[in-house]
């Protein structure tokens, strides 16, 4: 484990050209660091620019201003050792489960047989043994998420970026996937940045919760979550410690959520 921050954003700002012709600032003056092996959750009101933060770190989007560093080096293109799980399914519908998971190693130059061998291990680890030959449309939403998770983890990323990966799942499947994620993460020393608008999910998973302001996003506050590991996400929710942390963070988040709601209603009016 490296004590130095593996991710560092210094005064990062990201503007987009809005479709109306103006300029939309998604992220403003964002400064934050993530240490190696840490699990950081980023919460904020819906649509505040949390996802943009991840695309800056992944190198998919360059910052308009400021600097993004991954392992101490400025990000210009996609840095090696980064995995990214998107909000929407990004599994390839024309590939079987096994070949979807084998994509990463194939892209990185492994032979087909080698890639499939590595993929088979991960398909099993995410609990999909026996479904290697299935196509994504034959799977349930939860199982497709497992494929996406295996697809990302097979590259053994040191930095795992997750953009509301479980938000489209039903409640039971979501808790199951959260537990699964914690189990798989515990076996690695990857740093995770997990973006969500669900505070419960954030606290149940993370060591640290970063609260973002309403759009344009910047860091409002950061809270340590000292709940013991290993955790069971369904049970930990009912503990007093959990509720205590929840109240503390919610006090900070509530303001932003209200502000985002007001802005949304203004825009609608």
């Amino acid at each position: 484990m490296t004590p130095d921050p593996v991710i560092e954003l210094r005064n990062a700002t990201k503007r987009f050209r809005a479709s109306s012709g103006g300029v939309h600032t998604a992220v403003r003056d964002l400064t934050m660091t993530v240490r190696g092996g840490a699990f950081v959750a980023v919460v904020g009101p819906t649509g505040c620019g949390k996802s943009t933060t991840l695309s800056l770190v992944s190198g998919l989007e360059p910052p308009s201003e400021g600097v993004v560093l991954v392992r101490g080096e400025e990000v210009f293109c996609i840095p090696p050792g980064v995995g990214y799980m998107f909000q929407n399914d990004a599994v390839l519908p024309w590939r079987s489960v096994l070949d979807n998971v084998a994509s990463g190693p194939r892209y990185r130059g492994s032979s087909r047989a080698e890639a499939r061998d590595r993929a088979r291990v991960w398909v099993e680890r995410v609990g999909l043994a026996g479904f290697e030959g299935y196509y994504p449309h034959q799977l349930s939403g939860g199982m497709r998420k497992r494929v996406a998770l295996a697809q990302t983890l097979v590259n053994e990323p040191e930095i795992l970026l997750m953009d509301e990966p479980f938000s489209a799942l039903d409640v039971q499947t979501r808790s199951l996937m959260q537990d699964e994620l914690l189990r798989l993460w515990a076996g690695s020393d990857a740093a995770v940045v997990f973006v969500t608008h669900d505070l419960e999910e954030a606290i149940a998973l993370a060591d640290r919760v970063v609260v973002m302001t309403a759009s344009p996003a910047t860091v409002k506050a950061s809270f340590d979550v000292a709940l013991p590991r290993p955790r069971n996400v369904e049970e930990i929710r009912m503990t007093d410690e959990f509720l205590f942390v929840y109240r503390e963070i919610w006090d900070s988040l509530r303001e932003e959520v209200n502000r985002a709601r007001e802005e949304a209603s203004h825009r609608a009016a």
Partner: protein
Amino acid sequence: MPHDTTITTPRSGRTTVDSSVVAKATSAHRKRRATVWAIRLALVAGWLVSWELTATYWIDPFFYSKPSAVWQRLVEWFTVGTSQGSIWEQIEVTLQEAVLGFALGALAGVVLGILLGRSRLLAEICAPFIKAANAVPRIVLAALFVLWFGLGMTSKVATAFVLVFFAVFFNAFQGAREVDRNLVNNARVLGASRLRVLTSIVVPSATSWILASLHIAFGFALIGAVVGEFTGASKGLGLLINRSQNMYDAPGIYAGMIVITVIALLAEWLLSVLEKRLLRWRPQAGGTEVRV
């Protein structure tokens, strides 16, 4: 094992249903199919019989011909031969022109379509030219191609090429443009180079668009070849039809049309087989399930 193993195989439902229910549903399905086919055949028979009768008693069969005469001409072509020689030779020539024009046009359409679909700058530069080229009445080019390339095969291949190219190009372009950004980003983070993104994400995504256009495109290739022959040729089905017209031989024109239609249907069937093979990852609408 995960808890969320709700797999939707079409077969799983069937085993739990009572077999008599399945038998009933199957026989109802069969009955319906039989009815549909019976009505179709009755329609064709009614059409042919009324045509035959009107041509025999009311209108002049010299201009409008009649089914029995067309049939006779077809039999004559396939047993004795045509005015231009063996019918098989004419079919072979037309088919060669159409297939060649189709293959070249489709290839060029796919390559250029995907290239422009992925490069915004190129697309922006080329857009007005392509629109203009598409607005040209391309079938007239057949006349020009005969001047350029002579009466041989080349001029027909060129006509077929021009017709096929645009049909395929626009679909490939649209298909390459509408690739899910998510899939592209995901592949890039997973380590794909630009070329690999193109081959492993963009091309498969655009395949269903391209295949849809190929169905129409083969029809266009045949039209291109036949119109090319019509304009000026020494062999082919188009020439046959042209000669029939010059000799006021209406049955010959119909017979030529029928031969071309059969070829087009066969090609359509072949393309459907190819499509099924390439797109087998897609969920099948309806599937093999018995509808109750």
